[in-house]
């Protein structure tokens, strides 16, 4: 069903629209980025400025900051579309909702996952991570952030339009992000000791494949449920 060309072009159009929409309202773009940098900066104040200390925690710190920053961006994935009725118009246009779910996740990843990965480079270096484990961190962040976007979009669709949806999404989603955090942080800290953490990266890739196959269905039925 997803394979025929009309669907691929629809997917591309849906993603382009979401990115364009958020790009116009650029304030939303800044929140995940600023949040990511700010949380990472907090750690040296809290722990200690010496790079030796920070180095040992660097992987975990960056992963926690990235995870929280992406959770923050989940709320307004559907919020404006839901209130303006655009989501309803998309549903009524007969486009398969699986595509809408997937497109929203991709758009969220592009708008919050990608900038966080790019920003992780200077931040990681400032925390004293060497180049080899930086590459592992970036690889694990790429895989992990995509999974976070996919699962986060489903949870975001479930709680769209509810009171304090922002907080609800974070409370609902964090338990699902724990495995991603575990494998991401462990991969980075292992790589700092010289090990090549294939196992953790394989797991992250496995989680991503699982998320890609299952979450669009969950997002689709969440949209149909919340509109009903």
């Amino acid at each position, binding site marked *: 069903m997803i394979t025929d060309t009309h669907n691929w072009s629809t997917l591309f159009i849906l993603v382009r629209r979401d990115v364009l929409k958020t790009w116009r309202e650029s304030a939303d773009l800044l929140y995940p980025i600023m949040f990511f940098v700010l949380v990472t900066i907090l750690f040296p104040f809290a722990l200690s400025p010496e790079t030796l200390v920070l180095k040992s925690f660097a992987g975990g710190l960056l992963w926690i900051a990235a995870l929280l920053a992406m959770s923050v961006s989940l709320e307004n994935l559907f919020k404006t579309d839901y209130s303006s009725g655009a989501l309803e118009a998309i549903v009524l246009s007969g486009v398969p909702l699986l595509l809408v779910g997937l497109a929203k996740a991709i758009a969220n990843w592009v708008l919050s996952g990608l900038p966080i990965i790019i920003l992780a480079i200077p931040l990681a270096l400032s925390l004293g991570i060497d180049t080899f484990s930086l590459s592992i961190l970036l690889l694990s962040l790429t895989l992990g952030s995509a999974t976070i976007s996919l699962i986060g979009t489903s949870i975001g669709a479930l*709680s769209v339009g509810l009171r304090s949806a922002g907080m*609800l999404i974070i409370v609902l989603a964090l*338990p699902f992000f*724990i495995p991603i955090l*575990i494998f991401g942080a462990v991969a980075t800290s292992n790589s700092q000791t010289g090990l090549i953490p294939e196992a953790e990266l394989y797991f992250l890739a496995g*989680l991503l494949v699982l998320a890609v196959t299952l979450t669009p269905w*969950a997002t689709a039925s969440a949209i149909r449920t919340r509109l009903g």
Partner: protein
Amino acid sequence: MFKLFYHYSSLRNFYFFSEKLIPFLIAVFLALIIYSLYGALISAPADYQQGDSFRIIYVHVPSAWMSLLVYMAMGLSAVSVLVWRVKLAEITLSAIAPIGAIFTLAALVTGSIWGKPMWGTWWEWDARLTSELVLLFLYLGVIALLRAIDDRRTGARAASILCLIGIVNIPIVHYSVEWWNTLHQGPTVSKFDSPSIHIDMLIPLLTMTVAFMLYFIIISLYRIRSAILVYDKETQWVKDLITSSKREQI
């Protein structure tokens, strides 16, 4: 036509069917709970290592098993809500979620109390306890979502989706916590599987678990029955039932 018939009759039938079932369940439950308590506290021999503190296993392990069992039951009703649109399943899901949360809480508290004599700390990042903690948050998530949505039917359907995502997530959390635990603390046998459990110790554990299951069924029947009355408040059979009997409780 079948769907219509199936919907109308199932709630009414279930209500009167469960009415006959409850007294029987209560009787068996009371008998079992007394027998299990006797077994757990008196007849089971003390553990040669942990002494009498191991008797906490008789509340901790059944609660932990029940917390998983209830989540599986919620998963089952979630599937029947989303796939077969069964009204009874919508009511069941919202009714049993708090029961599961209660069992998870009991398992966590007893687990940490049991940890104190063994490891000297109230909380030990043991793989099983940590997975139980995450399970508690899955329950609280489902309950929070149910509370956040006013419309009961949309709420049940949204909670079903969240529950199914949770079902897929439980083995992943369990395995990743196990992986993370062995990584940081080395592969030790989990503190809770005492290697060879003596037959006299095992019997009360099983009967206690069955007693907990009966407890779960009885409480969920009560909750489902009252939800059915509220759900079908417009229908004639509910009106007759309410006005006819002077019954004080369900």
